[in-house]
């Protein structure tokens, strides 16, 4: 009631006050955050915006690609000749093994046909080039140049020439997002190659090494052991190299051993990756015991 004319003249009208706008857009952001993290309803919106951004992203990549192309073009002839000779020699050395491999493969195919086993990998593998690594410092992701148009689906495993890199988590029309095995709480079912002990490797986030959780202190594992995929999850085919054990700490007070491992694949370095086809569907998981049944007493209880 201090002033009668609180309203500014229409000449100065600027719409709602900044605070009102902040409140509106702040609440909208919070709603988006909540919806995206809890329900993942917004993937369609993300796809549309991603298509709009795609030309920009390619445009930004272009100078780097051009420089890389020029560098390759001007590689000294002699280096190429040397490489060529070395590769030919290597080819010769590996020829017997290769011929043997073909024989083995044929034999394997016959045996499998005899056993009427389904082919383990369905669909073709796709070679892809890494466009860029994710800029988000909180997650470990990279983007490859093959997407829905190349038949890539979410859930496919991604490897490089050494081992497992990660898994396709989002597919855009012309690119795909790969979550790396080092991403926080990203789990890969693994097996110790030497002893066959099964476990699950969990990523620990940016700048930290993955670890094996819930391994009892007396498990047969030591520093230097190689971990390969166990194949029991239906995502990764069995036997792909994943990581090497760096250290094993067994403390008497702890229930579980602390096992730190280092990924073998160039998780943050490789520029060429291979997207594997889907592993044949595993048989349906048996139903969990319902609540009204008797409580389970231990892990070893036999299910009826």
């Amino acid at each position, binding site marked *: 009631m201090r002033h009668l004319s609180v309203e500014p003249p229409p000449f100065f009208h*600027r719409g709602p006050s*900044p*605070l009102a*706008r*902040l409140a509106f*857009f*702040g609440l*909208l*952001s*919070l*709603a*988006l*955050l909540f*919806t*995206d*993290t809890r329900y993942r309803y*917004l993937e369609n*919106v*993300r796809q549309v*915006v*991603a298509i709009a*951004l795609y030309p*920009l*992203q390619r*445009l*930004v*990549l272009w100078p*780097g690609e051009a420089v890389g192309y020029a560098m390759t073009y001007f590689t000294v002839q002699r280096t190429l000749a040397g490489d060529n000779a070395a590769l030919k020699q290597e080819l010769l050395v590996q020829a017997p093994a290769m011929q043997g491999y073909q024989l083995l493969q044929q034999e394997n195919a016959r045996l499998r046909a005899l056993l009427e086993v389904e082919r383990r990998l369905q669909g073709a593998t796709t070679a892809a080039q890494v*466009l*860029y*690594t*994710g*800029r*988000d*410092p*909180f*997650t470990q*992701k990279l*983007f490859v140049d093959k997407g829905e148009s190349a038949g890539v689906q979410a859930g496919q495993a991604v490897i490089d020439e050494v081992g497992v890199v990660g898994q396709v988590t*989002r597919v855009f029309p012309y690119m795909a*997002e790969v979550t790396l095995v080092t991403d*926080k709480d990203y789990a890969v079912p693994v097996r110790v190659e030497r002893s066959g002990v099964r476990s699950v490797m969990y990523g*620990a*986030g*940016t*700048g*930290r090494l993955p670890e094996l959780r819930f391994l009892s202190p007396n498990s047969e594992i030591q520093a230097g052991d190689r971990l390969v995929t166990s194949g029991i999850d239906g995502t990764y085919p069995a036997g792909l190299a994943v990581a090497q054990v760096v250290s094993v700490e067994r403390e008497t007070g702890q229930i579980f051993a602390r096992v730190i491992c280092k990924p073998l694949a160039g998780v*943050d370095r490789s520029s060429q990756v291979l997207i594997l086809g889907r592993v044949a569907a595993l048989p349906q998981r048996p139903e969990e015991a319902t609540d009204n049944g008797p409580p389970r007493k231990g892990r070893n209880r036999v299910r009826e």
Partner: protein
Amino acid sequence: MPQLTSFAPARPEEILAPVKPWFVVLTLFLGLIGNLIPVTGVALALKPDFLALILLYWCIQEPRLISVGIAWGLGLLMDVADASVFGQHALAYAVLAYAAEYFRRRVLRFPLWQQAAQVAVLLLLCAGLVLLVRVVGGAPLPRWTYAVGPLVGALLWPVVTALLQWPQRPQRPAGSLAEH
């Protein structure tokens, strides 16, 4: 011959030409492209958020043109480009735009280097909001290098101001208005 002094920041008494909206759009677009440049390692740690910096400049200089709503929309674009959680940059940029509008009269009173110190606080606030959202969402704490980007951005403030103000500055020395 262009005068070197024309790159110096505008003194408060200097009257700037009105800004052209297409120039604002162009610079914001360039900021977005700057953020999309793929870098890794040390460069990634040093890289400031160009879009936030340019956005902050326009929010301080031209609050009637660029404010909370546009900042929010640009934040959404960044969320998709980074494949991060929907809304985190949107929230951070909206708050940044509001803070810029709130503090703009104070910031503009100071010489550029002291403006940069205040801009550092605003950019850290923006990065801190993103951090808060992610940590609440269950992400691990990033390393201390997370704070380097905003500080580099603040160091770039005088450069950004000089570049973005350049088209608006009077082209001839202030005294020679005779032929106008």
